[in-house]
């Protein structure tokens, strides 16, 4: 199954809706990198699925959700200042997580 790296960025007015979108992103295995920004790797059809789920939840007159697919090359060039995310975790490179 081919997969793609995605940024999900949203601006949502209602608290309830915003929380539900965030929960969906987590459920799909994305990592929260900022309050309204998620990042991670999705299978191609999951990418479409998440888009549709978000479309159903938001109010299209006031809210916005961006789903940005991007490539490995761009991922390597990401520059993080301050508190960053775990690159390996986001990129599905962790084979065994010890806890």
């Amino acid at each position, binding site marked *: 199954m081919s997969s793609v790296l995605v940024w999900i960025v949203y601006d949502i007015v209602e608290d309830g809706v915003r929380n539900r979108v965030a*929960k969906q992103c*987590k*459920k*799909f*295995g*994305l990592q929260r990198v900022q309050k309204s920004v998620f990042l991670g790797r999705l299978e191609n059809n*999951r990418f479409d699925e998440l888009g549709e789920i978000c479309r159903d939840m938001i109010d299209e007159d006031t809210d916005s959700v961006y789903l940005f697919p991007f490539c490995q090359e761009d991922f390597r060039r990401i520059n993080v200042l301050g508190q960053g995310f775990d690159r390996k975790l986001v990129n*599905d490179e*962790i*084979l*065994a*997580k*010890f*806890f």
Partner: protein
Amino acid sequence: MQLVINTPGTLITQKDGIFRLKNQDKRFDVSPLKVESIVITNKAMLSTQAVALSLEHNIDIVFLDGYGDPVGRVWFAKTGSTAMIRRRQLTAEVNGEKGLALVSDMISQKLDNQFQYLKKLMYARPGKEAQFEKPLATINQSIEELKDLEARDENIRNRLMGYEGTAGRAYFQCLSQLFPEKYRFSGRSRQPAKDPFNAVLNYCYGILYSRVEKACILAGLDPYVGFLHTDNYNKKSLVFDLIEPFRIFAEQSAVYLFTGRKIKDDYFDVSENAVSLNTQGKPIVVESMNTHLEESVRYRRKNVKRKHIIQHEAHRLANILLADEDEKRPEWLEIKEF
């Protein structure tokens, strides 16, 4: 990813469809879509909802004992197998011929792996060819004798195991010579391991056992009905048979850790006559094994990850059992990585 729980007292729960691991003030959330299996090596608490969530996503929960051997697992209520495969498996075992032909294929693949691996190690050590000569010859002889075995031979089981043993001794002796002085060992030892190498190797085999068992179950094979290792009460005979061609994966990872000098004395607990991996050593070994299984090798004209080869072969075994008597049997296994 594989979730390995190795902190005692970890709480595994579920929140909004996501696994949540908690231990005092440490917390880790992970989506079931990212998890392949949950391996519990220590005391932990597991909520029924978390179990249900993992069953829903085909994630198996495996419990390991102190040696890293799987003692149990949580699996779906459905076996996913057709009754037909099981019936064929039983007849192949009772009538013998097909089952024993399969087994001698598996064993000769195993010996061939040993042979090729030693050769590969030899080429990487120019000037030291002499110490490889004898073991290579011994293994080669066992391979040749195996070819001549008649399926009707009454002692076929004993003879198979005999050749396997002779080759194995030569193989491990040769490996030992390649190690740093203090880690050399004299032969295999299981429960308990008598030296660090055997402790690491047993742990790697343990990981492999659970993978092979899972592959059997997914392919609809009954892990308890074997061909060479005939069934004893509660013994996973088929797993012991099917693991033979794949043992090389564990051996490669273990040998690399030692020859690559990745092993430290601190990784082991040493008691009077037993050596075992401790909580410092285990992650190193698991990491090495996982990385190795994750690598792609050439397999049946395709690039396939080693871990998937196991599943492919289990499915193939099931198909061979289902095929009619006179159908031509494909080659057992062609791992082209040497």
